[in-house]
């Protein structure tokens, strides 16, 4: 059996394990270990495992992940999510569908200081859902907007998935964050437009809130200053080149901690809860990272990624057709899996294919960045597609009376906007690369 065949066989075995509810990180780890032993024997494996976890967990660049997660914990403790929604609601709430728009806007604002999509969905869901329900928003629109809005947590930098992509593709994290900025804003605008169209077709779906006076609006806006400050320091610090991403995350975490104590009245108990919350979110990510690491070593031993890439490149297909196939694979996988596992599983295989082909005449660095942003956008779609959509689950658990199918129907307009945006990004790399070139 050739290396490629063996690689495929083990990949299949892993999918069976996944289907049988083995934790994703463990399924990857077991597959990697079994393949490694088959190809090299027990002794090298046992020696490799002596330092595998240490070398995976002590990567400097990865340290931004727990830090950004902790920053999100403190930020929501500090009531920053509430003040964001309050301000957005004061500005847009009186439009038809305006409170849903405010929820999306607040998600974008929170996404600018939080690296995770689930945390954004959960935090903003708790803040905005009661208001949407009080105003009798159609349940599908209310929950759909929040589930989709949650993905802005990842689409707008900082973003955990982009950190992982940066490491897998050996690209600069700061540049990837820059490249995600305009597409992230486009995502927010697309979601706002989706709501506008929706309430135009179904005028009773999103009733208008009472209009606020300008003094009220200004005072609501003033509440947002801690978010602005964190954003300027963290993202501005990274873009402006003052900090490395890890340093920016460290500064932002300490800042958010201060806000949580000062504005949110956080005390020891709440502090410990934040640490535990950070631990849980981080533990989940790093188990998958560890499993994927061992799996990818095995895949390297089979030579499968390189040979597969050479084969696909050798077919001489139009590059955009190959890209389209890859994106379809992502959408299908996204129905079943979480975004991080998808990136870890597929990038070592897909990236060499992309790098072996010509897209819009991009140089290798630009190409890797451009593809990373597209991949990010597509894997995030998986968070709101049936049957498994983590964001939909989270929002639904906050609105138990709304059937899951109702929420999945509610996300359809947002999915349409996602598809349009991905097509735009694939066709016009300048959308993601413009800011990178401007700031570098």
């Amino acid at each position, binding site marked *: 059996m050739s290396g490629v065949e063996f690689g495929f066989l083990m990949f299949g075995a892993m999918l069976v394990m996944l289907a049988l509810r083995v934790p994703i990180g463990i399924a990857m780890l077991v597959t990697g270990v079994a393949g490694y032993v088959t190809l090299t024997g027990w002794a090298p494996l046992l020696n490799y495992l002596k330092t595998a976890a240490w070398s995976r967990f002590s990567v400097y660049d990865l340290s931004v992940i727990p830090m950004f997660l902790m920053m999100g914990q403190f930020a929501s403790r500090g009531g920053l999510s509430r003040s964001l929604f309050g301000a957005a609601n004061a500005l847009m709430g009186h439009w038809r569908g305006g409170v849903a728009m405010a929820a999306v806007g607040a998600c974008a604002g929170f996404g600018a200081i939080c690296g995770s999509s689930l945390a954004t969905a959960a935090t903003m869901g708790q803040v905005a859902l009661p208001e949407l329900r009080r105003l009798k928003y159609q349940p599908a629109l209310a929950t759909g907007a929040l589930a989709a809005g949650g993905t802005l947590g*990842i689409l707008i930098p900082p973003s955990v998935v982009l950190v992982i992509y940066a490491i897998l593709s050996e690209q600069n994290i700061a540049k990837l964050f820059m490249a995600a900025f305009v597409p992230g804003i486009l995502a927010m605008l697309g979601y706002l437009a989706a709501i506008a169209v929706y309430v135009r077709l179904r005028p009773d779906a999103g009733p208008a809130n009472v209009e606020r006076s300008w003094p009220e609006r200004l005072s609501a806006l003033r509440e947002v200053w801690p978010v602005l400050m964190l954003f300027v320091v963290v993202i501005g610090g990274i873009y402006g080149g003052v900090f490395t991403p890890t340093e920016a995350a460290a500064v932002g*975490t300490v800042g958010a901690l201060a806000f949580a104590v000062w504005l949110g009245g956080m005390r020891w108990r709440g502090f410990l809860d934040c640490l*535990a919350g950070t631990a849980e979110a981080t533990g989940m990510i790093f188990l998958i990272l560890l499993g994927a690491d061992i799996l990818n070593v095995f895949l390297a031993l089979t030579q499968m990624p390189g040979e597969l890439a050479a084969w696909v490149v050798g077919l001489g297909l139009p590059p955009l057709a190959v890209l389209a196939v890859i994106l379809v694979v992502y959408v299908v996988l996204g129905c079943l899996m979480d975004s991080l596992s998808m990136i870890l599983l597929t990038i070592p295989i897909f990236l060499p294919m992309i790098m072996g082909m010509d897209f819009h005449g991009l140089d290798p660095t630009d190409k890797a960045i451009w593809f990373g942003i597209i991949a990010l956008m597509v894997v995030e779609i998986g968070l709101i597609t049936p049957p498994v959509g983590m964001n939909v689950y989270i929002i639904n658990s906050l609105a138990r009376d709304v059937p899951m199918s109702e929420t999945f129907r509610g996300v359809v307009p947002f999915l349409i906007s996602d598809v349009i945006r991905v097509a735009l990004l694939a066709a016009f790399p300048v959308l993601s690369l413009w800011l990178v070139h401007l700031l570098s």
Partner: protein
Amino acid sequence: MAEPLVLKHAPTDPAGRVLYAISRAFAIAGGLVLVALTIMSLVSIAGRAMLSMPLPGDYELVQVGCAIAVSAFLPLTQMRGGHVIVDFFTVNARPAVRAALDSLGALLLAVCAGVLAWRLGAGAIALEEANDQTTILALPTWIPVAIMVPCFALFAATGLHAAWSHWSARGGDEAPPAGGAG
């Protein structure tokens, strides 16, 4: 008010409660390490900006501290059912079947964590014997690796506990919910 409360579930049996308490203590210790790293980074940045004197070895401290913190986080994640599974193919399976599969999955996790704990122990010994240290601060690397050993051992214990409680829940009601990534 903060988190995806929906994913939380804490064990109610005595062994589970003890494991949960220990896991939470590990996680909080790891969290404190992380907070210390952020403050250390802040001091280093301030030193660099104002005195042109960053803390020597700040990169190394972040690497070492991060490895310890992350390892200490794994058991709590397991106790709260936070490690992601794919439940698409088994959504309509009988609860007993799902519980049995979850028990098997948790057992597999326990075995993996146990093996990693054992190998990390061997790794710590090898690093100590080789006198391996970080470049600037000459911190012996066997120390953080040795600290990772109890973390993975506890992780294995939480896996065993989950395997046992899923197995005994085969006749009972809903299995605990799965977590998710993002």
